[in-house]
């Protein structure tokens, strides 16, 4: 069936389809359509909708719901996500599955309300304090927003870890026709065993009480826990990398972009391929885990990379790490809520080739 939805509304429909139980949020542009939609729909479905007094409250209510094994979600935009970082660190420390959505806008500070990708570092390096990561999904179409939202709870529960879905305000605001039947954009989660919910706190009736906490003061206790988390992140890195390649095999220059930047890159790739100019694109779909190995393999053949982002060079550092000196890395980015332009990418490619 063909559908037409705004990015933010696709997120709502996907999350409901994915079994959302409770949603808590504080308003902020460019993601207010999400709260507006849930305010209308969730009570009718007998699910929880709460517009709370602050982002700090929102993330801590997610924490509370997640403790009980319910599927909880919050959404915000960049400044609001910064406020949530303490809570996200606690969620990771307590290994609580939940979904957090960042519809990114320009920063730093309050910045502006236009779409951006300036929160790449914050998203992929944990964001708060301590040695932790969230799984980061970066959809690039309305369909992917829908599909990722649908499966993100399962992914979070599989690893008992928060999943962060990030996309820029442009994707959130745009409407797009998409086909729900096709395989494209679907997120397959492989489960070797059933989801373990033996840890949830649901009242100790007829069983010994359980305890979930992040304060680990005993000698060596915290380091042991850190190592356990690392083991989990290593498994995630091994199993959950998602990346898409377009015409990379014979590419003279390989573009690297995610989210909205990848869409503009793809327009460039198709445009230049028609003129027999050999350009490819690598599109990381998971930003944590990042496709280091996959990009390293490509850097054995392709010697020039052009990283395109709506910031001043953040994923650029991961591409440098991935290529490990094998290739020349160029960068083109726009900041402050400006969108990358296809014409400007083409000019940059011409500079690189000549």
């Amino acid at each position: 069936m063909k559908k037409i939805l705004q990015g933010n509304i696709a997120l709502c429909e996907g999350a409901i389809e994915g079994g959302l139980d409770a949603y808590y949020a504080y308003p902020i542009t460019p993601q207010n359509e999400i709260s507006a939609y849930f305010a209308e729909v969730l009570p009718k479905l007998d699910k929880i909708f709460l517009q709370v007094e602050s982002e700090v409250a929102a993330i801590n209510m997610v924490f509370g719901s997640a403790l009980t094994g319910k599927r909880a979600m919050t959404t915000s935009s960049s400044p609001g996500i910064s406020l949530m970082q303490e809570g996200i660190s606690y969620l990771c420390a307590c290994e609580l599955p939940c979904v957090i959505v960042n519809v990114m806008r320009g920063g730093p500070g309050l910045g502006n309300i236009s779409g951006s990708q300036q929160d790449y570092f914050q998203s992929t390096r944990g964001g708060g304090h301590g040695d932790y990561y969230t799984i980061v999904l970066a959809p690039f179409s309305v369909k992917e927003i829908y599909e990722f939202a649908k499966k993100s709870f399962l992914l979070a529960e599989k690893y008992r870890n928060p999943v962060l879905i990030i996309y820029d305000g442009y994707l959130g605001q745009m409407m797009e026709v998409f086909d729900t039947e096709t395989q494209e954009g679907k997120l397959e989660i492989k489960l070797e065993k059933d989801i373990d919910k033996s840890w949830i706190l649901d009242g100790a009736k007829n069983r010994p009480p359980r305890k979930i906490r992040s304060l680990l003061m005993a000698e060596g206790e915290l380091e042991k826990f850190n190592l356990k988390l690392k083991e989990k992140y290593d498994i995630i890195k091994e199993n959950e990398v998602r990346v898409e390649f377009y015409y990379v095999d014979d590419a003279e220059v390989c573009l690297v972009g995610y989210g909205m930047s990848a869409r503009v890159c793809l327009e460039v790739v198709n445009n230049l391929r028609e003129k027999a100019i050999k350009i490819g694109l690598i599109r990381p779909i998971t930003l944590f885990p990042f496709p280091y190995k996959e990009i390293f393999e490509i850097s054995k053949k392709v010697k020039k990379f052009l990283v395109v982002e709506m910031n001043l060079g953040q994923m650029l550092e991961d591409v440098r790490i991935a290529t490990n000196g094998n290739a020349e890395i160029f960068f083109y980015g726009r900041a402050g809520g400006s969108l990358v332009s296809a014409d400007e990418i083409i000019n940059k490619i011409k500079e690189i080739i000549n």
Partner: protein
Amino acid sequence: MYEEIFIAGSGGQGILSLGKILVYTSLQEDKYATYYPSYGAEVRGGTASCMVKISDRFIYSPIVENPTIMIIMNLPSYLKFVRKFLPQKFLFLNSSLIEEKEDIKDLIKNYPKNLKIIKVSATEIANKIGSTVVSNIVMLSAVLKETKIFKIDSIKITLEKIFSKNKKVLQTNLKALNALE
């Protein structure tokens, strides 16, 4: 088919609605389409604009960089956007609210592309129909007539869906759609 459409006017003129009507209609005609609104602190009376792309294949970027069609509904948008870029094929101007400027006329005269300018007194016609707010649909009827991007019947279906709960508003919109017949 591949069209990049840029629509601008003032908040309250139905600029974003017009864009959405085009996108919804593309679903009727089995086309791919994207819609991107210019959003901001704009309120009624501020500038509003949106970008629509319609194509037979998947559309990568929703951002209109080289419009084929431009629809300009008021003077501030005419001054702001037509000075900045011109479309490849059609420029629609709401002549009720736009007083053409010499420097922009010169720009158009020196423009190398075969650009057709269509002036429609959309606001006046809408007023005669009985509602200023349907000036966007009056303009749409001109766009359909000139560009043939959609069948008028497909737009009718879209309008019927949007205004299914308000027959009176639907009638006014349908009248506006037939205004130039």
